[in-house]
């Protein structure tokens, strides 16, 4: 199982490099913001650990993790969209 995940990891490294190498510098800020939103998937990690939390300490830390992750993912996508809706072609 471990080697399968490593296999996917290595391929994803190269895909990440390839996909981004064609981005014009004018889109760098939205791109950074967009990828920032994508790692907001950590919210799911927070949900999983909080769902299994057994002690008050674990519940408290998991709760904080969910808040952080949720702010990351929702804020990230919203702010990226707000930036991108301003890119308009000349009328």
């Amino acid at each position, binding site marked *: 199982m471990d080697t399968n995940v490593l296999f996917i990891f290595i391929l994803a490294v190269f895909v990440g*490099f390839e996909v981004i190498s064609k981005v014009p510098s004018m*889109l*760098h800020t*939205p791109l950074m913001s967009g990828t920032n939103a994508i*790692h907001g998937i950590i919210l799911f990690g927070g949900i999983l650990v909080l769902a299994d939390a057994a002690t008050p300490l674990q519940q408290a830390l998991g709760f904080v993790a969910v808040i952080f992750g949720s702010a990351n993912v929702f804020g990230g996508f919203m702010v990226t969209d707000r930036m991108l809706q301003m890119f308009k072609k000349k009328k």
Partner: protein
Amino acid sequence: MCSQIVPLIIIGVSVLFILGIKFLSSPKTARSGNLVAAAGMLVALLVLQKTGGDNVWAHGWTFNYTLIVIGTLIGLAIGAFGAYSVKMTSMPQMVALFNGLGGGAAALVASLEFIKGAHGTKVAGIELPVLHETTKFIAGSMLFATLIGSLSFSGSIIAYLKLEGKFEKPMTFPGQNYLNGLIGIVILSLCGWLTFNVTGGNAITAFIVMFALALFFGVAMVMPIGGADMPVVISLLNSFTGLAVAADGFAINNLAMVVAGTLVGSSGTLLTLLMCKAMNRPVTNVLFGAFGSSGGSAAAAGGVAGTVKAIQADEVALLLAYAQRVVVVPGYGMAVAQAQHSVRELTEELGKRGVEVQFAIHPVAGRMPGHMNVLLAEANVPYDQLIEMEQINPSMDRVDVCLVIGANDVVNPAAREDKSSPIYGMPIIDADHCKQCIVMKRSMAAGFAGIENHLFYKDNTRMLFGDAKASLNALMAAVKAS
């Protein structure tokens, strides 16, 4: 849901993430790219599985689920408030902040996964957590995620504060890089020792010490770096958070997290390198060079030949109104003065008079790559008027008037002429090559890097002093009258 279908759906989610990033690479499809990635996120949430393979939503409702819903809603409120209240000039700070929160979440998730299920001894009624036995690979992943996530958290907070103007000067002291190196070695040693001794008696103490040191290391790493280099730092920390999320994915066996985190990690690394390339500096120089401190001495050396010549708005208006080709070079000063709307009005008026107007965009103008594009887009400047540095430089000698608005280091010819300058070798927009260069500036203060600007002393340069927005409005009135 049938457990065989879920991996197939996760493949679909991965494709959505990749397509999302790909669509973000063109202005036409960028907005839908962001939505595609968000759709991928939603699908991944619906099929979210526990490590054992059960759908996380299929279980009985417990208090923990109430906490999940409340926490998510609080995060949603914070995120929405931040995203919609932030001014376009403060975008980089917002990205830094969201990134820091993601890093913090990654560190917490890894720590919680590590203490899950294991029971410790009770001391005064409180149960102390212990780390639980696992494979070396999983333990290593969790330690890595804790380490990188907490570093990214504290580093991003410092980057945020620096961009907000708090202690934006680099903080340095002799031997700083050695001290940071030493802390780094201690952290890595703890990490290595813990990987093989998770059930040892002092494991939880070592883990907490490692957590705290990693938080401190994030602060120590970013403090010596000047505010001008924060974009590079944020981009680097963004890729760090991605890698921490991928490591969390390994630890809790969630493929969607592995793919998403890795994509961000590798693309963020490349973006960091591209940004350093635009400044013509190796990434090591940005991170360990304490750029701003050497810039201070260079500014003090001074001694630039020539004199500074001021000009009045009326005169500039005449130059502009009867020019054939005008190029505007915007910089962070334009953002600070909130002058982007006035710039657009002026260029529209010039366009009506048949003047060809373009904007020359330096890749690192402002506080982040693409920062100027976002600001000008907000002011409804059509993006086909925005020309990148490499495309516009060859034709700069055919430009009648070059209007530099709040840009400084990115038009400093010292980068070409003065080998002793800290920015020597950085690609710049050749504003000094045009027939007449007008620099709009508040005062003669040095730029963000603290370096004297040779452009101000050139024979074909005139300085229009004052607040950029007020000056532009005066120009606008004078152009209309002429």
